[in-house]
């Protein structure tokens, strides 16, 4: 019964989304405030009904209603409560419902921003909410006609299949919602770009309206991707965190385009320049989000992460992708102004932001080409090919490094005019510090060149962020700036934190990738062995039972230098899903993780015999992963920067965008 209600709510939200699109379109065309109010109601009710629909699906999971196909395939009565709830979006149909819900919420938020009396001449918010209504309508159509989460099974099976055990994890429970807030958030930016082209509004106006959405979507995408990488690190038991897998690339492409967009929108909003370029990027961001959905769900590219492979659904998503892309670029071709905006010198903030965009767009295109290349190659020459980490590291790495080297300089330059390279003098200290860091890494820690250059980059970026903060605080001396630092507005912190975060991330990524150590040892109970510079004693191997799995747990006493502590890596067997998983034990020791994964017994119990005696010996894979925390910490700083930029804007409402910089300037003067 509750499933039928859920479907009814979904259809209601579908109908209301159509209403939202039509009413708001009419409102904008006629300039009718009454229609705007009705459209806003439709958008709000669509969001409410979509929420009810998701709650109905969650109820189905909570009650383990196996007459529902998605529940039967993805749930089990013994599954813990949180994963029953998260199970609602841990599958294709449920995740599409969540996509629709997020689209409705964003649509309502955009409609709510429209001035109630129609003061806004170009009706930007109303138009954007109308476009958002179209996107929600198409998403609901796809949901209802091609992936109905409320489809029934007859006869209902007696027991369910269980959620993929790898996904039964706290980080992965909240990973999809965050990722969708990012992907669908890009649809709002798209909607504003379309609204801007449609209304022929001033570029400054739509850029100003779109930028908070871009910041929000991009920040959520950052958090979502970081959680996914963190999950891969501790759950897959392999010690890696990024694999350049097609599904990872699918989320990374909109992130790169989004990073280009928030920088480009900054210029459009402040100087009116790059207006056309910002519109192209906004359209591309959402297209790339849809392309990601298509790649992940159509099964056209195989990946370990992909779920719900279905070519028929692929065709639907491809249709949406085509519509959004060609529709968007078609409108762009008709309406683009082709204006140059205000002139600027090459060595100016605008010039460097253009280079930033060039780097990010080429990086994004490279990831796209590498991801699609196996398909292209097979279609064009019939030759099969694979594109993996060696290609991406070799091409993406240098591009990223170039962008990171230029970033601190771009921050210090002036808008419009070449004010002389003297502006960059504060960075000399950063260059010296970078050299010191690189030398220290090579001489002190015999680091490989990759780790050393990343250490140098980190020093350079952190110094640059410090100089930027010093400048924003406006003190004559560092001490004076430190006193003033609380007066730096949140928006000022955004760039400082995000760029510092990039430095922290580069340090972690470079050091971890090139200095990770891995050893495998086999221990019998009571035996001691050495791996990764620590001594391991296997005290016991105990068995136990979780709610929906069995456990083998190794009790290890680790002697690491002067420290002694216990580690207890586990192997689990999820009996409903018939899937084993590994739960690694991780010990953070002064910036480097000791990472232990528990393997199978060898010897007596039928495995390949290694020891002459009869006692089974257990395999352990021991990794020393230096600076891993910097990777996730740096990513968190980047996301925090984006969110502060967003909060700083929302808090200040409609006041002029340039005020904070002026404040800093007047303090300096």
């Amino acid at each position, binding site marked *: 019964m509750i499933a039928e209600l859920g479907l009814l709510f979904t259809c209601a939200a579908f109908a209301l989304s159509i209403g939202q699109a039509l009413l708001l379109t009419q409102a904008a065309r006629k300039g009718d405030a009454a229609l705007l109010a009705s459209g806003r109601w439709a958008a709000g009710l669509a969001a409410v009904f979509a929420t009810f629909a998701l709650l109905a699906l969650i109820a189905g999971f909570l009650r383990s209603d196996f007459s529902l196909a998605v529940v039967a395939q993805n749930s089990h009565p013994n599954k813990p409560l949180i994963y029953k709830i998260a199970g609602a979006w841990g599958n294709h149909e449920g995740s599409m419902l969540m996509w629709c819900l997020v689209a409705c919420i964003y649509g309502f938020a955009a409609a709510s921003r429209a001035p109630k009396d129609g003061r806004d001449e170009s009706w930007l918010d109303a138009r954007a909410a109308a476009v958002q209504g179209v996107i929600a309508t198409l998403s609901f159509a796809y949901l209802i006609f091609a992936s109905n989460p409320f489809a029934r099974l007859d006869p209902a099976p007696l027991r369910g299949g269980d959620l993929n055990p790898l996904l039964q994890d706290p980080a992965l429970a909240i990973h999809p919602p965050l990722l969708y807030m990012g992907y669908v958030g890009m649809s709002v930016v798209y909607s504003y770009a379309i609204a801007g082209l449609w209304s022929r509004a001033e570029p400054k106006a739509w850029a100003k309206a779109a930028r908070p959405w871009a910041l929000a979507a991009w920040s959520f995408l950052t958090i979502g991707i970081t959680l996914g990488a963190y999950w891969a690190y501790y759950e897959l038991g392999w010690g890696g965190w990024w694999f350049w897998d097609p599904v990872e690339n699918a989320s990374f492409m909109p992130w790169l385009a989004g990073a280009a967009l928030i920088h480009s929108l900054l210029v459009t909003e402040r100087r009116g320049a790059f207006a056309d370029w910002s519109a192209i990027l906004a359209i591309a961001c959402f297209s790339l989000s849809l392309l990601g959905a298509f790649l992940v769900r159509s099964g056209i590219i195989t990946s370990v992460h992909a779920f719900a492979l279905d070519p028929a659904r692929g065709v639907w998503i491809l249709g949406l992708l085509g519509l959004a892309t060609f529709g968007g670029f078609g409108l762009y071709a008709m309406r683009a102004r082709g204006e140059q905006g205000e002139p600027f010198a*090459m060595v100016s903030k605008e010039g460097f932001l253009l*280079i930033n965009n060039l780097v990010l767009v080429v990086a994004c295109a490279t990831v796209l*080409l590498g991801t699609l290349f196996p398909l292209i190659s097979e279609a064009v020459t019939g030759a*099969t090919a694979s594109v993996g980490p060696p290609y991406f590291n070799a091409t993406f790495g240098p591009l990223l490094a170039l962008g990171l080297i230029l970033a601190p300089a771009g921050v210090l330059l002036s808008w419009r005019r070449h004010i002389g390279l003297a502006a960059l003098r504060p960075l000399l200290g950063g260059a010296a510090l970078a050299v010191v860091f690189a030398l220290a890494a090579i001489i002190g820690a015999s680091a490989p060149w990759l780790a050393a250059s990343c250490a140098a980059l980190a020093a350079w970026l952190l110094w640059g962020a410090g100089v930027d903060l010093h400048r924003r605080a406006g003190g004559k001396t560092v001490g004076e700036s430190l006193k003033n630092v609380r007066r730096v507005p949140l928006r000022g912190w955004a760039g400082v934190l995000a760029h510092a975060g990039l430095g922290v991330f580069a340090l972690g990524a470079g050091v971890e990738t090139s200095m990770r150590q891995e050893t495998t040892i086999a221990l019998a109970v009571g035996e001691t062995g050495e791996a990764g510079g620590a001594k391991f004693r296997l005290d016991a191997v105990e068995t136990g039972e979780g709610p929906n799995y069995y456990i083998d747990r190794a009790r290890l006493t680790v002697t690491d230098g002067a420290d002694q502590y216990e580690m207890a890596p586990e192997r689990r067997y999820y009996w409903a899903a018939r899937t*084993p998983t*590994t739960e690694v034990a991780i010990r953070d020791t002064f910036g480097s993780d000791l990472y232990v994964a528990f393997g199978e017994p060898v010897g007596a119990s039928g495995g390949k015999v290694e020891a002459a005696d009869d006692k089974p010996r257990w395999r352990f894979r021991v990794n020393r992963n230096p600076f891993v925390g910097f990777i996730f910490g740096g990513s968190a700083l980047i996301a925090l920067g984006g969110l502060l930029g967003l909060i700083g804007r929302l808090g200040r409402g409609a006041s002029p965008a*340039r005020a904070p910089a002026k404040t800093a300037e007047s303090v300096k003067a």
Partner: protein
Amino acid sequence: MIGAIILAAVMGLETPLADPAAEKRAQNLFMEIKCVVCQGEPIAQSGAEVAADMRIRVREEIAAGKSDAAIRSDFAARYGDEVLLRPSAKGLGAFLWAFPLVAFVIGALALWRNAASRSRRAQALDPDPD
């Protein structure tokens, strides 16, 4: 099944090479060779039996004194080009490898020309105090 693959990855039964430099080469090659029965994973992280056999083969060939390039072409000859995660730079692969640099240079030239014309117009402007 994915879980089984991943779990098994933890416990490779093969013995590392005695020479650390040779073992490092083996580890690097493991990252570049795709497991033929898995979905796009390198043999370094796959626990499928085939992947274990492939790792043993890599170590054997290193022990036999073969160069990395020779090992790569051995694997490509045996399993097809798609076994290499480092795509070949021949044919379409040349386009793939050249793309980032070419795209960057073309983009940079376009920006330079565009910026040069803007820059001439900007000469007369006062600096914006922001």
